[in-house]
């Protein structure tokens, strides 16, 4: 007897999202197999960050259905608590706490008080912030805060990473340090917003391209996407089309 197909990590069907009267995502559908990486590309205002907030259970979808790691949103969002690592535009760190204090706070919230200390020390070392463990976040540069936010997102070894431009604010050395930590790993699914089309096509299994109106331009395996077609969604014509 054939084994049942594994549950996809992500499945969205006719997902739409509105802020008041303004629709940011329109009828978005896609699927990502477990352990895969979905790259989301699109111009500014296409709704990429909003999509990630929906997938991370931080926003309730206005319409359509969304399933993350087998849990339907928003009804079963509570089942995903502690299973996602979210790295958005806000670092989710307290400015008046030191780097290690912030990570200890999150470790305790995720129920990792004992093993947390070791993991915190290891992560700080790996992102090059071990010597800044006692520095308050408010006194850190944007790049340092980003590296610390990466530690925060990885602290509980999540099953899925939800990454919104994870390398933004990082200099090349910082990006080199952080990229392997956030890279593909057996058993971990990823959804990644990026403006780097080449990186999206080389590092992802599937690509979801959104138009300026928040609808799907295309959704396909990364290997089948023509780079020029992917870049065309950022073109002026695309912008004019959206304004028309």
């Amino acid at each position: 007897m054939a084994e049942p197909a594994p549950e996809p990590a992500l499945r969205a069907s006719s997902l739409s999202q509105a802020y008041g009267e303004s629709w940011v995502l329109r009828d978005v559908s896609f699927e990502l197999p477990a352990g895969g990486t979905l790259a989301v590309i699109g111009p500014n205002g296409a709704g990429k960050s909003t999509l990630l907030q929906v997938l991370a259970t931080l926003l309730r979808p206005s319409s359509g259905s969304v399933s993350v790691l087998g849990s339907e949103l928003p009804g079963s969002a509570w089942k995903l608590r502690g299973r996602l690592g979210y790295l958005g535009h806000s670092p989710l760190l307290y400015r008046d706490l030191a780097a290690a204090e912030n990570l200890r706070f999150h470790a305790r919230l995720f129920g990792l008080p004992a093993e947390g200390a070791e993991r915190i020390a290891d992560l700080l070392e790996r992102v090059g912030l071990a010597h800044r463990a006692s520095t308050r976040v408010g006194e850190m540069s944007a790049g340092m805060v980003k590296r610390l936010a990466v530690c925060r997102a990885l602290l509980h070894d999540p099953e899925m990473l939800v990454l919104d431009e994870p390398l933004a604010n990082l200099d090349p050395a910082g990006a080199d340090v952080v990229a392997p930590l956030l890279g593909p790993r057996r058993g971990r699914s990823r959804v990644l917003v990026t403006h780097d089309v080449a990186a999206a096509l080389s590092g992802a299994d599937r690509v979801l391209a959104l138009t300026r109106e928040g609808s799907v331009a295309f959704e396909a395996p990364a290997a089948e996407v023509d780079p020029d077609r992917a870049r065309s969604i950022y073109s002026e014509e695309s912008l004019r089309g959206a304004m028309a």
Partner: protein
Amino acid sequence: MNGPSTFSAVATILGKDLRVELRTLQSIPAMVLFSTTIYVIFRFGLDRTQLDGGLATGVLLVTILFAALLAINRLFVAEREQGGFEAIRLAPVDGTALFLAKALALLVYLTILELFAIPVFWLFFLDSGTGLLPMLPVVLLLNGALATTGALISPIATNSTARDLIGPLILLPLLVPPMVAASAAGAKLLLAGGPDYDKYASWLGALGLYDAIFLLIGWAVFDFLLED
């Protein structure tokens, strides 16, 4: 993923809040300064150096109420501006832990305020401090009312564009019943001739019931408030 117990999550969030307050001194010094200023205004505004009964109780309780509003307005600002709401929603903890931690933080702030504000009140306005001892349970139960309603309403206000307006507009009507109960109890405790305990237990009971009701309401609805 197995998260921490609610007790552990409450302790973690409360510890964070107290550490940040100790470091930044954003709420408690402002509350203390505010209470002193209010006393000075009452002293000169009423042109009285001695108060008793309902007037004395009113001055004390209104001062505590408005000082509490300062802390309540700021209670969730860091969670909104620095991502605390999102962090809690991503973690395997019940949102109720945030409500309980914030209510406890408010209780701590109010207790520290009163350690200063009640002796100053005695110094400014009272002939004798005999009524202040039985007044303590009244004030502590009023603190419970301020803490539970404050922790419940503050996130609603914090997430609105008119935070400073919405908070007091919703909160003050909700606080009328405990203020009435506390004033009624206190009016007889701070009489010039010494405390009168008529209906004292009833008013304490009413305050305790109010605290319990708002604790349960917060417990029941706070997780929903955290959603968008």
